[in-house]
């Protein structure tokens, strides 16, 4: 997937990192940044049926209740972050509207909706070595019997936090890292991938 790191007046958080410098076929390891997406943090309690209903009304799907899972709906990914917290990833264009919709549907309900799009970026990691690469930095067990498609987790990778989810069994992973840590993570990945270079 082609990466876009600069559009008109925006720069992606990982603008300085060149993943194509990892010299190996994509089937071995492939990494790209999905910048400029919408990220909306949603807080509320599913024990509050009004909140649950309002969320469903706004999103067209229930917020995932089960820990460490995510759902996809209408080009939106909704990740469970905690017992009263979700992250919604969507197209940049729709973000502002969605934030407004959520806020108005949540009117008078104990909740919070916060646009955090500028603070996050997403990496997609795939290939035979994807799992091994991540395992160099994360204490999470990524074996398919433990962590598979449909699951997500917030954890550490190297010395920064990440939100990780598995998109397909191949495996393809996506991970969110905070903007200010992303350049660091980029360097970490380039270093960790050195082993996989094919001269």
């Amino acid at each position, binding site marked *: 997937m082609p990466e876009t790191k600069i559009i008109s007046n925006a720069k992606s958080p990982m603008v300085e990192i060149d993943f194509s410098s990892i010299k190996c076929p994509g089937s071995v390891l492939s990494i790209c940044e999905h910048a400029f997406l919408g990220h909306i943090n949603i807080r509320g309690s599913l024990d509050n049926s009004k909140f649950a209903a309002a969320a469903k009304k706004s999103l067209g799907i229930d917020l995932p209740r089960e820990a460490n899972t995510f759902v996809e709906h209408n080009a939106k990914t909704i990740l469970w972050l905690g017992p009263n917290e979700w992250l919604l990833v969507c197209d940049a264009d729709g973000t502002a509207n969605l934030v407004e919709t959520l806020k108005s549907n949540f009117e008078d309900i104990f909740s919070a909706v916060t646009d955090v799009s500028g603070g996050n970026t997403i990496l997609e990691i795939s290939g035979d070595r994807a799992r091994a690469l991540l395992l160099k930095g994360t204490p999470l067990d990524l074996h398919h019997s433990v962590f598979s498609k449909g699951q997500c987790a917030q954890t*550490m990778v190297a010395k920064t936090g990440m939100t990780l989810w598995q998109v397909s069994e191949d495996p393809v992973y996506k991970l969110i890292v905070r903007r200010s840590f992303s350049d660091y993570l980029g360097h970490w990945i380039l270093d960790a991938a050195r082993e996989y270079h094919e001269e």
Partner: protein
Amino acid sequence: MLLIECPYCGVRDESEFTYSGEAHIVRPLEPSALSDKEWADYLFYRSNPKGLHREMWYHSAGCRRYFNAVRDTVTYKFKCVYKIGDSQPNLDELSSSAKHPADVEAK
């Protein structure tokens, strides 16, 4: 290297958590009514037991929830975890469920 069960996310590595000290130290409702000595007790004095300890952990790199745990400060084994607000487990019952001598006494 502890292995900690977050009551929300499940079992995770120690590196995702931040230790947060003794649990159930309730902030006095009316601090100004306390003597300096009572206030000092709340602020600084800790039970610091050798053995079972009720303590707080923060899943800082995960769901960012605080929760409580009972852990043995000698074996470092967690006896149980429970959510903030849940009733305190009975330490005597937990300690009698110790598996073997090494569980209660340091090597």
